[in-house]
């Protein structure tokens, strides 16, 4: 900031007549990455800082969520759908100066699927049988069975390509192939990236980018208003957004995320093992008032576990329209005319804490008393997620295309339906796009008809951005802040 002011002053003083083009950006983030290895933690903050900026995979997500070629220049699939052959770009260098070779890809994928792998999304690599380097720039991946999602999986941040030479220090000194190089990490304060001069693709416009970690919503507001940061990604206090919208210095970007926010029900715990009760809960919830009350109007209602911006989305909100009378009737039918008591366990995010209060009131109106407990994430993971000790909980599932979790009977909401399990298994091996769409739609309908969980809304991504900064992704097809296309206007 100081340097920028000095620079501006200098430029004005010299009266050069040319507009001073800013080439650095400071972006505020609420959470700091615990370390800098995207292939061994679930923390979204790691991908937000590094995905596509420092690390690249064979494939990558584009701004609209589509999957495009990354380090792979080209790829082909064998007739039986089991062998993928990737040709790598030839002029790619890691930031430490070493060349990207097929052996690096073999190393990265083998490391992710190894027995002692600590990859948070190890399931992405489950289907891989072998990874071989055909020559210096060609990699052959053989799958145990055809897999429709394989290229999509290879675009995830957990599947980026790393080099064996730099793997030991990756957590503090990440070395990738991306358009930006890691420069400095002031722990607790900021991470700085600088432009990679030898980048193989289109050179980015920015020379330097700083991610500043500001956890307090009030501090985030102050930092934005004082213009200490140029953008605040996923701004934590939706109540201030109207004020930013009214201020000509800023724009508010409202986009989609992959976060299906659900009121999860413990399908194996009475009375939620009864579909009538689950249906009653679904009808008792007024989604729009949850969105308005907890998210200040940002969010799209959903009726199943699927993102509305996905082409295969079916609007099933009608299955569980807000109807307290029907909810009461269903409860009576289930033999619970006098209602019942259950627990509602809420993790820290505001969608859960604020949404929880509203939902508790709505459930009370139909006779369901909830005992709310506010938990930290670690407690939530221990009690609700691993211990399955909950009646109801609210959580946003932020991984893209994660309907497959409904095929895991031991998953925390404990939904066990062989029909859906078969469908998801078939979907895994289906490569035909039209058939995949059909199957995804049937899957949405099955879980909606079974009222597995209460489906609330698709989490919106609201970022506050300096009005002159352009090129930030409005949506979050994955947890990424891709800076390669970001620049200052004028």
């Amino acid at each position, binding site marked *: *900031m*100081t340097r920028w002011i000095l620079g501006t002053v200098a430029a004005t003083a010299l009266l050069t007549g040319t507009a001073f083009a800013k080439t650095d950006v400071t972006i505020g983030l609420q959470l*700091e990455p*615990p*370390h800098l290895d995207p292939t*061994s*933690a*679930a*923390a979204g903050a790691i991908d937000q800082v590094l995905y596509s900026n420092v690390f690249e995979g064979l494939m990558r997500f584009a701004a609209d969520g589509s999957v495009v070629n990354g380090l792979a220049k080209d790829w082909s699939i064998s007739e039986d759908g089991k062998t993928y052959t990737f040709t790598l770009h030839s002029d790619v260098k890691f930031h430490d100066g070493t060349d990207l070779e097929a052996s690096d890809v073999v190393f990265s994928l083998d490391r992710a699927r190894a*027995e*002692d*792998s*600590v*990859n*948070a*999304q*190890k*399931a992405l690599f489950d289907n891989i049988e072998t990874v071989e380097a055909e020559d210096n720039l060609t990699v052959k991946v053989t799958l145990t069975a055809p897999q429709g999602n394989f290229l999509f999986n290879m675009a995830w941040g957990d599947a980026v390509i790393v080099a064996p030479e730099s793997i030991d220090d990756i*957590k*503090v000194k990440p070395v990738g192939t991306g358009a930006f190089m890691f420069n400095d990490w*002031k*722990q*607790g*304060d*900021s991470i700085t990236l600088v432009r990679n001069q030898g980048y193989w693709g289109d050179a980015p416009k920015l020379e330097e980018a700083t991610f*500043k*970690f*500001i*956890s*307090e919503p*009030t*501090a985030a507001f*102050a*930092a934005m*208003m*004082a213009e*200490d940061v140029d953008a605040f990604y996923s701004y934590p206090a939706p109540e201030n957004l109207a004020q930013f919208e009214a201020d000509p210095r800023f724009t508010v970007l409202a986009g989609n995320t992959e976060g299906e926010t659900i009121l999860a029900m413990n399908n194996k715990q009475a009375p939620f093992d009864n579909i009538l009760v689950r249906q009653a809960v679904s009808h008792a919830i007024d989604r729009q008032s949850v969105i308005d009350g907890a998210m200040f109007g940002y969010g799209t209602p959903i009726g199943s576990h699927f993102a509305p911006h996905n082409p295969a989305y079916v609007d099933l909100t009608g299955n569980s329209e807000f109807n307290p009378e029907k909810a009461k009737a269903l409860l009576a039918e289930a033999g619970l005319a006098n209602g019942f008591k259950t627990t509602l366990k809420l993790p820290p995010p505001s969608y859960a804490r604020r949404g929880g209060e509203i939902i508790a009131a709505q459930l009370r109106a139909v006779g369901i008393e909830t005992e709310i407990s506010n938990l*930290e*994430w*670690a*407690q939530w*993971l*221990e*009690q609700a*997620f*691993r211990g399955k000790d909950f009646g109801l909980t609210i*959580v946003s*599932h932020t*991984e893209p295309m*994660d309907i497959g*979790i409904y095929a895991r009977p031991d998953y*925390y909401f404990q939904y066990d339906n062989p029909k859906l399990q078969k469908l998801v298994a078939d979907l895994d091996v289906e490569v035909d796009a039209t058939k995949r769409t059909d199957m995804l739609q049937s899957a949405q309908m099955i879980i909606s008809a079974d009222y597995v969980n209460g489906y609330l809304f698709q989490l919106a991504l609201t970022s506050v951005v300096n009005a002159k900064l352009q090129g930030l992704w409005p949506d979050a097809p994955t947890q990424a802040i891709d800076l390669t296309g970001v620049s200052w206007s004028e």
Partner: protein
Amino acid sequence: MISLIVASLVIFACIEVIPGDPASFMLGINAQPDTVAALREELGLNASLSVRYLSWVTGMLSGDFGTSYTYRTPVAEIIAERLWLSLPLALIALGLTVFIAFPIGILAATKRGSWTDMSVMGATQLGIAVPNFWFAMLMVLLFAINLRWFSAGGFPGWDNPFAALKALTLPSIALALPQASILARVMRSALLDTLSEDYIRTCRAKGLTRRQALWRHALRNAMIPVLTIIGLQFSFLLAGAIIIENVFYLPGLGRLVFQAISQRDLIMVESVVFLLVFAVIIVNFAVDLAYAWVDPRLRARV
């Protein structure tokens, strides 16, 4: 020494019983159970409690605090880096506290009952009552958002000492305000107590003015309770700045502990808390030395 051993046991026992597993926290809700098990193994979480306690304590004896579960860098390095912020911040805030509290405390005591005294008492009451984070936010609103004299927060590091001091200005004022109010009141009442002692009357009888008696005899005797409070305040400022650190998003010790607790980075929490216990013991020792300096009678006992 014994207090340190007891402290290490208590800290370890208290922190290890917190529910929540660092490995599952890190891997999130899509991770497979075998991955979590692999990470637990990698972090050494599968060893028994006594083994982990012993390796922690013996490591600390040789200056090795272990490796943070989340950051995966040595705990000692991270703490050292945070101390570079927390220690100067605490010192500046304490300096400000003393700088404000001494003159107004003495002033109020010398003019007991006057309107000066009343307004000092009123102002310090207000200083204690106003929550410091609220005062901090008001300062941010005025000096950062409206006047643009300061950044709203953050810490640029000591490479540029001027910028670093500037970044610590608002936080140290916010921290110092309630502390100075407390200290000024302590100063005032301690002075009033000593001023009513017999030896002060003797001094006056020997012909010293009230002012001379205060500066030569009463002040020094009033220092004992004041030093005690300063010692307590320093320990508090070192670790208790969490809220102010959050308001100004400063990377200090308080925020480190706060983050480490929510991430279940147990070894980090244990080490920082232990370090703070150590710091409190050192500060108490320094305060004892200072007692001896102001009161020669205590020197014989030390």
